[in-house]
């Protein structure tokens, strides 16, 4: 009997699980494990001759541009998470406020999200380099005279603007789902009790849709650490590699300069940062959700 059951289980595994799991192992698990291993060797992209301990990691930390990238990436993640979620939540409130035109508004807010970061980055490069310059000449506004993309600090805000524009529509959908899931009875009861709109928002709506915040914060944070397309197409890392987010830095390190060992070490560090940030964020949000 039990042997018959176990042959059936093996048959099930072979029918349903074997192919996708082998692909998963080959494409994701194996390169990940190998990548981790190779950071401790003197790998040059083709082979390695000896185990070199933490050499690739110490070399990364001695590299000044890597520290610039780390600082820039952290700043980008923090600011973009706050800005995207604040805007997205605002849009969700706007779209759920029982306007006739809310479906059309929702469509407009969502459209940038359909388009890949590279195309969006190119569009905005034209805006910052050409269109805004023309406006400032016409109305003699000094603010946009020189392209924002030529100045590290302003280029940072350009990246934030494009990121907010791109992803707020997606996060808006998540917040709408949260807002709509709140039961009408609760809201009506609060209105009868004379709660002000602001109090309704902070005391009832936000606590009842805490899960939407957890998800949205997680997704924006992950996207912030992984951002590459907009970075590449908008600033290209310039001026002078000062606006390189970590993803682009790794790409350059390995494929432009051929430093495969340090590039991969930085990639592993990136993974550790994403994993730690995600674990902390989810743990904190879960605790807040319960309260």
């Amino acid at each position, binding site marked *: 009997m039990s042997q018959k059951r176990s042959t059936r289980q093996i048959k099930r595994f072979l029918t349903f699980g074997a192919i996708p799991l082998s692909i998963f192992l080959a494409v994701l698990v194996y390169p990940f494990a*190998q990548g981790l291993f190779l950071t401790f060797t003197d790998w040059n992209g083709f082979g390695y001759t000896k185990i070199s301990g933490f050499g690739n990691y110490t070399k990364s930390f001695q590299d000044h541009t890597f520290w610039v990238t780390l600082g820039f990436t952290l700043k980008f993640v923090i600011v973009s998470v706050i800005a995207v979620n604040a805007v997205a939540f605002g849009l969700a409130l706007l779209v759920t406020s029982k306007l006739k035109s809310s479906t059309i508004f929702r469509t407009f807010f969502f459209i940038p999200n359909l*388009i890949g970061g590279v*195309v969006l980055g190119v569009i905005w490069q034209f805006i910052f380099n050409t269109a805004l310059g023309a406006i400032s000449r016409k109305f003699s506004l000094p603010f946009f005279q020189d392209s924002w993309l030529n100045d590290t600090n302003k280029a940072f805000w350009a990246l934030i603007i494009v990121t907010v524009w791109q992803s707020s529509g997606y996060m808006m959908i998540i917040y709408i789902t949260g807002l709509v899931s709140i039961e009408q009875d609760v809201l009506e009861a609060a209105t009868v009790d004379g709660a002000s709109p602001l109090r309704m928002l902070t005391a009832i709506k936000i606590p009842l849709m805490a899960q939407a915040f957890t998800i949205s914060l997680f997704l924006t944070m992950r996207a912030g650490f992984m951002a*590459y397309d907009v970075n590449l197409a908008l600033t290209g890392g310039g001026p002078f590699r000062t606006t390189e987010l970590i993803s682009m830095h790794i790409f350059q390190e390995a494929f432009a300069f051929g430093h495969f060992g340090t590039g991969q070490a930085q990639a592993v560090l990136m993974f550790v940062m994403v994993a730690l940030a995600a674990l902390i964020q989810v743990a904190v949000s879960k605790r807040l959700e319960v309260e």
Partner: protein
Amino acid sequence: MKLATKRRSSGKKVIFGVGLFLSLSYVAPFLLVLINSIKPKLDIVANPLSWPVTVTWENFQEALRKMNFFRSLVNSIIITFFSVSVLIIFSSMLAYYLARTKNRFTKTTFLILVASMIVPFQALMIPFISIFAQFVSINNRIALIFFYQGFGVALSTFLYHGFISKIPTEIDEAASMDGANDFTIFWRIVFPMLRPVTATVAIVNALWIWNDFLLPRLVLKQDSQTLPLSTYLFYGQYSTQYGQVMAGLLLAVVPIIIFYLVLQKQFISGISTGAVK
């Protein structure tokens, strides 16, 4: 009472005004691309904000040719379509197996799949390329579709798993009494019930694969480029030909927007269920 309704209606007007202003600013960049795509270069340089005075279609002809638009479009469609279809087949079957067979192996496998979603592609991109270099050189489109299976299977399986767990096992058991084997039970009885998740899985993955840039950039060769890739390379080469660039950008944007407007409802519900899971 009258005052209250009046106040509410004026409040609505303010909200409407804010909404209108914001929606316009969200589409403004696309409008800018649109008006400049039909202007000659000199007019764009003179004033990118002006309405087109002389209309030219040359920008589109040049962009269509230089970015190999139709070839890239077909590549994008082929790669997205096959990647998503195979993902649906594989991940729904895997999820069925993991949800219906309860043992230590399936539980661990499921946990590993969920945990793997946190791994950024960049963390394994460098060894990945050297491991698969030979495979890529044989047929890079098929290689790319294969890679998307590996990178997409975790999320898709996760989405299916949640849904399958809610389907009562009595349904499978009844069919199995009638002598149907597991494979038939799944495809004849269970899979048709998964339609709502299948829509979610299809949309979430199609958006990702259609717009993906980094992996195709590393894998695809010149004649198998997808739309984002050829747009980017075209821009790199002709960035000072403003009118042609604008036409190219518009061409790159239009297919997905049409697709979205046709399937808007499915998109919105797909994304909200896909994310909240």
